């Protein structure tokens, strides 16, 4: 038992080092793919970008969920066309708004974010074009469109109901286009290219062979988007140029490293052996926090970085309380082993209660906070949870293991006046 626990300190150090390696450089093993620190997802306040909330323009009622879904597909199609794939689009049904966030990369010198925001919200122009590019039908000719399941062919289809003028136009066009492609465009982006199988004159057309219900619904949403009775405007918008925030992460990381190094020096100087253990525990805590950000690709904003630095402070507290307690117990005449046991035992309740209250605050922040507050609450929560693992459990294992070594059983290594034999 004794020899087994003796090496625990080194096991914890190795685990910490291994996790640190994964957190900084990532891990790509088969299906496991953890992104490293350099591939961290940063918020627009760090790397620059656009955040805009679109609401219907001049609409005196709340938009329906279907209308918002259509508006969303317009925005998505346009962003696809501009090759903006790294984006977040959220539909807020209760407030009738669509939230769009995307980065503004520093190599895009000619990018005009204001124009981009305006264009995304404009009404979509839907056209049906023959192989020569002639427009044969427009969005206004489509009454409605929906996804459906075709029993006879056992496949998903998109049904288009045309207006009266639409059916006449469509009937004429399909007559000469049998066997040819009739492509559907949103603005200048091709969204579907079905082949005309026969002349369609009933005012109802179907686009067959859709892969799934989802793809069929996506296409019908896009077709419906032209029937959207409003355009979207962005009154709430935030644009940050990449040059403004580009140095910020590096600077904050440097600040964090210096703060961390100073805290470690302070702990080593003041608490000696328990201080050394505290440094390892703090490293483990920070590494765990980084992984909690990079594994789910959680967006890290500037306040989020502040949250990380702050929870280092919380982590220090747990270690300070424990180290102080061990010192007290030693001075009261306990043996090293029982002083460590008693120190952790007595420190636990206060570390536990302190951490739980901070967890309560951080959860409240996650629920009510938006954007930067959310990021702050999340990093703080992860930090405090990691503190339970690193600052309480891992610290205890490490100190107990180091205390097994004879040369380390010196009072001054624990900052105490004596160690009872």
């Amino acid at each position, binding site marked *: 038992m004794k020899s087994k626990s003796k090496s625990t300190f080194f096991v914890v150090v190795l685990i910490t080092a291994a996790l640190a390696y994964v957190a900084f450089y990532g891990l790509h093993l088969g299906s496991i793919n953890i992104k490293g620190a350099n591939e961290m997802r940063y918020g627009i*306040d760090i790397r620059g970008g656009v955040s*805009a*909330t679109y609401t219907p323009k001049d609409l005196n009622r709340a938009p329906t969920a279907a209308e918002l879904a259509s508006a969303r597909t317009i925005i998505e199609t346009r962003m696809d066309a501009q090759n903006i794939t790294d984006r977040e689009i959220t539909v807020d049904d209760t407030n009738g708004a669509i939230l769009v966030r995307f980065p503004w990369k520093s190599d895009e010198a000619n990018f005009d*974010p*204001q*124009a981009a*925001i*305006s264009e995304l919200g404009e009404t979509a122009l839907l056209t049906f074009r023959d192989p020569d590019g002639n427009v044969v039908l427009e969005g206004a000719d489509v009454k409605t469109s929906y996804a459906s399941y075709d029993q006879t062919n056992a496949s998903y289809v998109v049904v288009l109901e045309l207006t009266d003028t639409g059916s006449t136009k469509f009937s004429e066009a399909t007559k000469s286009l049998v066997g040819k492609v009739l492509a559907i465009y949103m603005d200048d982006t091709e969204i579907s290219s079905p082949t005309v199988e026969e002349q369609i004159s009933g005012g109802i057309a179907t686009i067959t062979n859709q892969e799934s219900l989802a793809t069929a619904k996506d296409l019908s949403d896009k077709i419906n988007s032209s029937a959207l009775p409003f355009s979207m*405007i*962005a*009154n*709430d*918008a*935030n*644009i940050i*140029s990449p*040059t403004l925030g580009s140095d*910020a992460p590096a*600077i*904050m990381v440097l*600040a964090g490293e*210096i*703060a*961390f190094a*100073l*805290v470690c020096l*302070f702990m080593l100087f003041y608490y000696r052996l328990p201080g050394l253990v505290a440094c390892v525990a703090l490293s483990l805590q920070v590494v765990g926090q980084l992984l909690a950000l990079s594994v789910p690709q959680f967006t890290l904003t*500037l*306040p989020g970085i*502040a949250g990380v*630095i*702050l929870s*280092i*402070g*919380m982590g*220090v*507290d747990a270690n*300070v*309380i424990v180290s*102080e307690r061990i010192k*007290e117990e030693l001075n009261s005449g306990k043996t090293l082993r029982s002083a460590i046991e008693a120190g952790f035992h007595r420190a636990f*309740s*206060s570390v536990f*209660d*302190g*951490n739980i*209250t*901070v967890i*309560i*605050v*951080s959860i*409240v*922040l996650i629920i*009510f*906070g*938006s954007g*930067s*507050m959310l990021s*702050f609450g999340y990093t*703080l929560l992860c930090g405090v949870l990691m503190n339970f693992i690193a600052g309480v459990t891992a610290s205890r294992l490490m100190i107990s293991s180091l205390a097994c070594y004879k040369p380390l059983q010196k009072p001054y290594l624990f900052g105490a006046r004596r160690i009872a034999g």
Partner: protein
Amino acid sequence: MKVINFFKQRYVYFAISICIILTGVVFAMVNGIKLDIQFQGGSILKYTYVGTIDSEEAGNLVETALGKTTNAQEQTTVAKDEQMLLISLADNEAITSQQQQTVTSTLTAAYPDANLTLAESLSVQPFTGARFFRNGIIAIFLSFGLILLYVGYRFKKIGGFSAGFMAIVALFHDAFGGTAVFIIFKIPLNDSFIAAVLTIIGFSINDTIVIYDRIRENKTLMGPKTTTEELVNTSITQSMSRSINTNIAVFLSITIVYIFAQVYNIESIKDFALPMMFGTVSGCYSTICIAGPLWTMWKNHQAKSGLKKA
């Protein structure tokens, strides 16, 4: 270890705290409490440029183009040696991206050689801002409520509710202290404010809990004959070096962050770190000098009225 009598000096501490709070109130009346457009609503556009631009003229141009009251200001950032033109719209009005384009095109047409580039823009509708602010305030008060419940439950042994209540008094003290920093340094209240206040609350309650924990433990160790005053003084003295060391570490970290943010002009971090620096000190102080003595007074009062009844 010599027990320090914190209780004896309580009125000095109370006076110091009241002075700090009053300073905040006076500054609030003089400076006014400024909400950032994040909460108040409005629009601001920042451009970098070279050469010289008469900001008043630029403001007038934009005002004519948009038909809305506009205010323009010049700003120089020290670290980056850049000149900035700030265009803000009065009356908390939010403008659309189309109107923003108008601002940009008006200015670039008027100053073709200035190499005007949009650095940042923020536009928030008043009702959206109000919603954010409301959520932030709800978050703060909900945290207070939950902390009161939790402390009340966990510290039943030392009269849960009274302990929880005094912890909340200390929290208000620190939240006011943090807010006062925003007001005195004229930092508009934005979401950094909410984050800073919530962090201060978190730290402050942690400090208070560590002391309460010691009181809870000592109550058993020291026996029923000990007076509340003795119990509290001993507990605070015993946890003194922990309180100081933890706060040195936290204060050190935050100060380094603040220095970096200040030097490199990272506004969002700067606005957050400065109130935090004061907040950590206040959190430590309020626990030792406010929550402990107040709780002792409460207990003594209870004991006295209990005696009278008996």
